[in-house]
């Protein structure tokens, strides 16, 4: 049942900061992803949430192979992708596919829908025999709720929601086990978001897919995710089942984040526990010592500056939480 399809071990990505034009000298690193351990089981959806600059987009790029990790490993079905040769890597990528955020820029405007959805078969010719491709594309378009007769149309002839469906069809072509959704609905209108979210859920049930769902919208993540990882400045600060994270958060950052999410219910106005964070997120090039959240945390004490809290279950937190003083606080429901 709970077989692992993907695992990251101490995944690290630093982007060097350099000076000079001809002779480049390095003077620092942007620590975009700094020691991330995650795992994903078959048929499961793992949500990754955090604010801009927390490293979730870099994590996505690492997972689909658009960036190479500085250190650490990504294990897909027991195979460490970091150890693969270029050609093996290309094959391994089949198994993990990407749905991008912006349906307007993620489709080549000079290719027809048919070209776009069949491109995976052109790149991996061994997946489907040539005479089968057209039939497969038809099936894929039907699967995502598009009219297969529109195969010769160009992306600009479709609306945003329909384009996102084309992107999903492309991601499904190689029958991957894992689909990485990088903010798949944030560029869509409210009334269209539900269409795409529901489609993703149906496809998961039908095809037994595993999703990694990266988003800044905590409400959408709650809806779709089974487990959630909260990221702050390149690190996972809290990890747990959706009810653990949303209803029983123990890390102060998670609590602050959740308390800021507006709930479409005016009767909760003034009845929720509001935490207003001070200041801005520190630069990932120069993160604070110890706990990275301590500069904005109301619980911070000396130990937070000297000792980095590990992501592990604690006395008052049954699920892993990277805080020395982890303690539950309900911030999304009304308090009396």
């Amino acid at each position, binding site marked *: 049942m709970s077989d692992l399809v993907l695992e990251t071990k101490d995944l690290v990505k630093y982007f060097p900061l350099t000076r000079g*034009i*001809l002779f480049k000298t390095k003077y620092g690193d942007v620590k975009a992803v700094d020691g991330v351990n995650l795992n994903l089981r078959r048929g499961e959806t793992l949500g990754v949430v955090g604010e801009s600059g927390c490293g979730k987009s870099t994590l996505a790029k690492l997972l*689909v*192979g*658009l960036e190479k990790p500085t250190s650490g490993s990504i294990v897909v079905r027991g195979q460490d992708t970091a150890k693969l040769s270029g050609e093996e*890597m*290309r*094959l391994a*990528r*089949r198994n993990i*596919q*990407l749905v*991008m*955020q*912006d349906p*307007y*820029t*993620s*489709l*080549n*405007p*000079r*290719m*027809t829908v048919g070209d776009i959805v069949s*491109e*995976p078969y*052109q*790149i*991996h010719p061994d997946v489907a025999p040539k005479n089968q491709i057209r039939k497969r594309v038809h099936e894929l378009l039907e699967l995502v*709720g*598009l*009219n297969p*007769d*529109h195969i*010769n*149309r*160009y992306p*600009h*002839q*479709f*609306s*945003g929601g*329909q384009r996102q469906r084309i*992107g999903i069809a*492309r991601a499904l072509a*190689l029958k991957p086990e894992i689909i990485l959704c990088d903010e798949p609905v944030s560029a869509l209108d409210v009334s269209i978001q539900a269409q795409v979210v529901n489609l993703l859920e149906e496809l998961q049930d039908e095809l037994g897919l595993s999703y990694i769902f990266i988003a800044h919208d905590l409400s959408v993540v709650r809806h779709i995710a089974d487990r959630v990882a909260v990221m702050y400045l390149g690190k996972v600060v809290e990890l747990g089942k959706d009810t653990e994270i949303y209803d029983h958060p123990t890390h102060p950052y998670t609590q602050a984040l959740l308390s800021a999410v507006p709930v479409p219910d005016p009767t909760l106005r003034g009845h929720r526990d509001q935490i207003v964070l001070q200041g801005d997120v520190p630069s990932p090039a120069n993160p604070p010592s110890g706990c990275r959240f301590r500069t904005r945390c109301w619980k911070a004490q000396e130990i937070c500056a000297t000792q980095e809290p590990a992501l592990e279950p604690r006395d008052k937190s049954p699920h892993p939480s990277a805080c020395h003083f982890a303690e539950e606080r309900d911030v999304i429901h009304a308090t009396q």
Partner: protein
Amino acid sequence: MSEPLSTMSVDNPAAPAAPVGPGEPSKDQSASLWSDARRELLRNPIFVISSVYILIMMSFAFVPKLWTRVDPQDCQLNYGSGEPMFTPGHWLGTSQRGCDYWSHTVYGANPSLQIALYATVGIVAIGLPLGVLAGFYGGWVDALISRLIDIVFALPFLLGALVILGMLRKYSIWTITLVLVVLGWTTVARIMRGSVIAAKNLDYVQAAKALGAKNSRLMFRHILPNAIAPVFVIATIALGGFVAAEATLTFLGVGLQEPAVSWGLMISRHDDFIETWPHLTLIPVTVLVGTVLSFILIGDALRDALDPKLR
């Protein structure tokens, strides 16, 4: 050009222009950006007029017999009294040397347009691959090519041309073309480099990369088709620029030499007589300016039609 296009802002009510419903039958097979551009161009009167003008000039250059039966070298020496003559059969009269001026005007298109075409092919052939390499691979390849571009770009065009042609001491279509290519390829390379850099970071290129596409596919399927439009524009405008450059070099005495027939030569021969017989200068100047202007206008129209951001 002043007509407002529907821009793609977030809250613009005109966009997306016409999302098709799932049930409608497909009505138009060719809605690719290229065919859209073609339709747009054919609706643009400036483009059509300029193109017709250029086609006429091309026929001047390559099938002159269509326009005149008189050989430009066949000059009636007895007319050569030092004055242009207007006699039957010479509707633009003759030059000072008694040569038919209309025939000179027709045949004079040939070297200008030949040089312009060869030079343009040349700058694209050199500039495009170098620009693509620099933009796609970046790093030291880019550094090397970019510095080379900077160096060539820093040479003053006219001075460079004068020096090189002076060194070569051979003033033919080919040497002039060579000089124009050597000094002119940088524009194409720069444009292409920028265009490739912009295209290679686009989402759909990243998407193809994530699918495992190889560099050749990324290049020819995704980056080039979306990055090449500005090169068409630059090349078209360059055609006009080279027509003008040929005339300039010829006028300065380092271009074509008599007995060749060219617009540049016609201007340089007769500019002393601009007060007495202005038509001898004005006729070649007019066709020359018309040609240069037409190429530039076609380039502008292409730019408008090919830019997918405007639709």
